[in-house]
């Protein structure tokens, strides 16, 4: 594999919660991201999945250094940028771009599409050969928009087309890494596929690396070469795509996969796991293993000792799992029903 482009290690972000009637002071903190280790290699696509509130977006914003971490390091091409100043970050900003779920809120409604896409080039003083306008037209074409639409405004476009505008803007500076935070979650399925195919073509043809954040496990499987599963601020399992989807070891990965509704009516019955309750609050996460309050395998040790993210026996290189009592690599077709309403 190629050199690491982005290496996050021990990455932590706690958000203060302020309280107090007269004097505001910190009364608690949200453990949004708590010691995440994750690497993205050049040209590689890494998926980050997990349920809402588990810290995916925060991880993405830390990776893009839009947020400063509470602890840990973010190495970009070998250099730790965790606490770099704005000035120090300036030269690498163009190389790391973000795409968001809701392109509309990140597009200036009063600017033409051409202006929006030209913006980053102007800010960074980049003058492509042939001029900025020609480059904008070229970018519009790459993302599948009509270059004639240069002078239109964002509201004249559909959701899928706006996402393409956001992608064109991200491409304007020829990034090496794109952090895509739920880029297709707001789109209807028929449009979702158009945008996923576009992103895939960019990764393949332009060699751009992706940190692809989504809660949809099927889309992540489709898009990513490696996948990390997050739960309450921690990565609980990370592996190459096939290992993660075919031989998951963490009970939470099993639970997530078994909960995905599938449109296949001919498939044989699969493992069926129904967790009880919801994800606990990240303000006061459970001790030890954070998944233990919903885990059917939990024992005393899980409450006292945090399981390290390590390679388990029988797993491929790079397949790491954080669990004291992992599932058998070949276990499939089991039935675990923890939901009290469904237990009769």
């Amino acid at each position, binding site marked *: 594999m190629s050199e690491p482009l982005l290496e996050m290690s021990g990455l932590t972000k706690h958000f203060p919660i302020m309280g107090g009637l007269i004097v505001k002071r910190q009364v608690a903190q949200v453990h949004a991201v708590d010691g995440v280790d994750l690497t993205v290699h050049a040209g590689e696509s890494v998926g980050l999945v997990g349920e809402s509130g588990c810290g995916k977006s925060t991880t993405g914003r830390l990776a893009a250094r839009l947020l400063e971490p509470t602890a840990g390091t973010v190495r970009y091409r070998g250099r730790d940028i965790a606490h770099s100043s704005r000035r120090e970050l300036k030269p690498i900003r163009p190389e790391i771009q973000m795409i968001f779920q809701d392109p509309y809120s990140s597009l200036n409604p009063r600017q033409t599409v051409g202006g929006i896409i030209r913006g980053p080039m102007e800010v960074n003083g980049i003058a492509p050969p042939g001029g900025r306008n020609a480059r904008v037209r070229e970018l519009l074409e790459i993302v599948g928009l009509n270059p004639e639409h240069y002078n239109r405004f964002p509201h004249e476009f559909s959701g899928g087309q706006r996402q393409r505008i956001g992608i064109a803007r991200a491409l304007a500076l020829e990034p090496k890494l794109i952090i895509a935070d739920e880029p297709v979650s707001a789109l209807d399925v*028929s449009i979702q*596929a158009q945008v996923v195919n576009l992103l895939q073509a960019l990764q393949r043809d332009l060699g751009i690396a992706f940190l692809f954040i989504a809660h949809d*496990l*099927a889309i992540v499987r489709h898009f990513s070469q490696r996948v990390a599963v997050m739960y309450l601020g921690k990565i609980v399992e990370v592996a190459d795509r096939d290992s993660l989807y075919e031989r998951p070891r963490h009970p939470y990965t099993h639970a997530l996969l078994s909960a995905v*509704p*599938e449109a296949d*009516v001919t498939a044989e019955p699969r493992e069926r796991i129904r967790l009880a309750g919801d994800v606990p609050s990240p303000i006061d996460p459970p001790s030890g293993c954070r998944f233990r309050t919903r885990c059917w395998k939990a024992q005393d040790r899980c409450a006292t000792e945090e399981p390290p993210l390590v390679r388990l026996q029988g797993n491929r290189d790079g397949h790491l799992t954080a669990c004291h009592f992992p599932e058998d690599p070949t276990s499939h077709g089991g039935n675990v029903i923890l939901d009290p309403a*469904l237990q009769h």
Partner: protein
Amino acid sequence: MTTPFLSVRDLTVDFHTEDGVVHAVDGLSFDVEKGTTLGIVGESGSGKSVTNLAILGLHNPAHSRITGEITLDGDELVRAPKSQLERLRGNKVAMIFQDPLTSLSPYHSVGRQIGETFRKHTGASRKEARDRAVEMLRRVGIPHAQTRVDDYPHQFSGGMRQRVMIAMALVCDPDLLIADEPTTALDVTVQAQIIDLLKDLQQQFGTAIILITHDLGVVAGAAHEVLVMYAGRAVERGTVREVLGSPRHPYTWGLLSSMPRLHAPVDVPLVPVRGTPPSLINVPPGCPFHPRCDFQALAGPDMCRGERPELSPHRGHGDACYLTPAQKQDIFIEQIKEHL
């Protein structure tokens, strides 16, 4: 032949807006039997919610025009007086939405809200209503129902709040439950719990359910019959096995081949539907899907742009497309199947 429990015939809903008339639902017909679930799928704006608000009589007559027939257990609803519809709602027909906070008040305990709905329709005493509320909370799987009955909606997590709303919807044992994207805002593990809960309750009480969703996976796991909607019309209808297993309409093909799968080979490319859905003010003539359809040349473009295709055959697995049955079968087997 017995009349179906719910029967919708030729339903049309138009809205008069500043931009023109929105043809939100156009000539829709379907049936739902007791104890079964009809899944209505389609992308946003295809008329799913408008259809179901029409069943509940919730459209403002000043801004909408509704024609056709809706018969619930023998009662005609389209021209029914307001008072009759009010009696039906909550009692015979109940609805749950994507966002529970639209149907729960923040100012009253959940027990009081569930109890009031019960009292309104049954004339039960306060004590009976409270007991009923506890029973309902227990039924939908809320732990410590006896004490949680006094909590307010904001004290529940998203998934638990959805359960509270289901408890409230089911408190009078309705015969028909309309669930409009009930799990869209939930995480997958919680979505799976809620879907299982609905199936479980249906088995116990024989409720008819209309499940509106944009997720074909949810339909596959929870519905018996499916109606695929496009631009306010039904383009395909049949059992889950028929529609998802041997789909016949080009739009259904597009929906299915756009979806990434968890268990298909990873290198199967997604095949999107090109273009975007039409405006419902200017619905394309003929087959509303024709501007996005790759097969109209086979059917004859004059056909697709001419008269509007009707769902056929009339019963069972039907679709609204001018391709011949043999063409549909060949295209599905030769071009579509490999992408599913």
